[in-house]
């Protein structure tokens, strides 16, 4: 099975063999992080542009490191301080960047569908690094790699995704990826933050945290964005934390002793995760970040370094 896509836009587009190719490639590339000289020449002469219209620490940094370890030239674009501030439209900015012949553009934007729009408009490969409330495929891939390395396999595992499911591109990408690899997914959160008809994605729904975390192999906590409170979707942070915050006590009483705790970051300590859980023995949050670099190397390599991708 080869890689034939120009772009990586959504987990929903991929079939199981493509997801496994990405995860396997990333797994093999992890070794580079342990080397004294962390650089291989695979993408020498290729240019990667990070086009970020939204704040990001982990994703942008890890795409940058991934590109550099593969010897690509990586250019970072931030919307502030650019012509966007002077009123240039998103597509115009992107077309101007494309005129400089990059091989891959990594895009993050607050509008769902922004990456797909660029994929249609630009000849280079597009990687979706998060578009609105739609998808964040590299996050799902690094989550799958983390789970597989910690548990030894993914098929048949049961994952609870907890929090603001309705606005989470991380949840959406993970649901698609996990279902395709034969995992069971339960989503849990207050009814205002669970999208209607979410069951159609093949997931179970729970409205009680204690029930949702019982007997699952993995608990994935999502970041609660403060603007959800302003929108009236939750009464207060304190109430959210009380019903939906994961504490050590709750884990001890309801979860399995070998459960993994994941979080895509940034963590609201004391809201969705207590600090003891975030830093505790169940937590694999920093493993997720480390795997993020390997996953992004794999994505860049398959898009820019293979004949089927843009690289020929």
């Amino acid at each position, binding site marked *: 099975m080869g890689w034939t896509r120009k772009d990586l836009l959504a987990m929903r587009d991929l079939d199981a063999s493509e997801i496994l190719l990405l995860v396997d490639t990333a797994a093999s590339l992890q070794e580079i992080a342990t*080397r004294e000289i962390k650089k291989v020449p695979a993408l020498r002469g290729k240019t990667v542009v990070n086009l970020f219209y939204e704040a990001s620490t982990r994703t942008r940094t890890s795409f940058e490191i991934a590109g550099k370890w593969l010897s690509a030239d990586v250019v970072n674009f931030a919307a502030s301080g650019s012509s966007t501030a002077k009123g240039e439209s998103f597509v115009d900015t992107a077309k101007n960047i494309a005129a400089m012949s990059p091989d891959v553009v990594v895009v993050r934007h607050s509008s769902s569908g922004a990456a797909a729009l660029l994929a249609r408009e630009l000849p280079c490969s597009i990687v979706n690094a998060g578009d609105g409330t739609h998808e964040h495929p590299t996050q799902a891939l690094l989550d799958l790699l983390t789970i597989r390395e910690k548990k030894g396999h993914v098929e048949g595992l049961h994952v609870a995704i907890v929090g603001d499911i309705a606005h989470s591109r991380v949840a959406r990408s993970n649901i698609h990826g996990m279902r395709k690899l034969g995992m069971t997914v339960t989503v849990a959160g207050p009814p205002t933050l669970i999208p209607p008809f979410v069951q159609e994605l093949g997931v179970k729904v729970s409205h009680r945290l204690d029930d949702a975390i019982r007997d699952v192999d993995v608990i994935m906590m999502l970041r609660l964005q403060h603007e959800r409170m302003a929108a009236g979707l939750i009464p207060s942070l304190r109430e959210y934390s009380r019903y939906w915050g994961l504490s050590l006590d709750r884990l001890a009483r309801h979860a399995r002793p070998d459960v993994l705790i994941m979080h895509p970051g940034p963590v609201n300590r004391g809201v969705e995760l207590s600090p003891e859980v975030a830093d505790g023995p169940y937590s694999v949050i920093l493993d997720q970040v480390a795997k993020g670099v390997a996953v992004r190397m794999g994505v860049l*390599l398959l898009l820019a370094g293979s004949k*089927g991708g843009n690289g020929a």
Partner: protein
Amino acid sequence: MSSPARPFREKAQVLDEAALDRALTRIAHEILERNGGATELAFVGLRTRGVTLAHRLAAKIAKIDGATLPVGTLDITLYRDDLAMRGTPVIRGTDIPFSIKGKTVVLVDDVLFTGRTIRAALDAIIDLGRPTAIQLATLIDRGHRELPIRPDYVGKNLPTSRRESVSVRLREHDGEDRVVIEEPEEV
């Protein structure tokens, strides 16, 4: 040099099981002779069959000399000069769980042909540290070099034409130990 489904037919057998084993035994002795023993030696095999051959050479040296030499695995995909011409790159990973600094590294591959794989392997190894020396062992040298690279240890020199293919079959992968020349079916 693996054999995926392709229209090739066997033209001649070059080494049988016994001859292949004798060639490896001789190479093991030559490695010890050239390096004055087994101290500071390490094997690095090129995926896939080079790794198997490296393990066999290490086993032979253990038998002759009593020394247990480390064996590493090198995947040179990320160092290929034709990466983007080969379809989807399949990365299976490098695994060299020992320091090569100050070691004499014996690089092992099954077939030496254009030399481009070895060029990539040299770069890959040097990126991992500074060995004292790198030597090259290959079971078959089939000629047609495109780079100034020569092997230090050869199982068999085998003049071939470019359209032929040399298939090294090893028990661990192919269920048999032998080397054959293949030619395109349509001829």
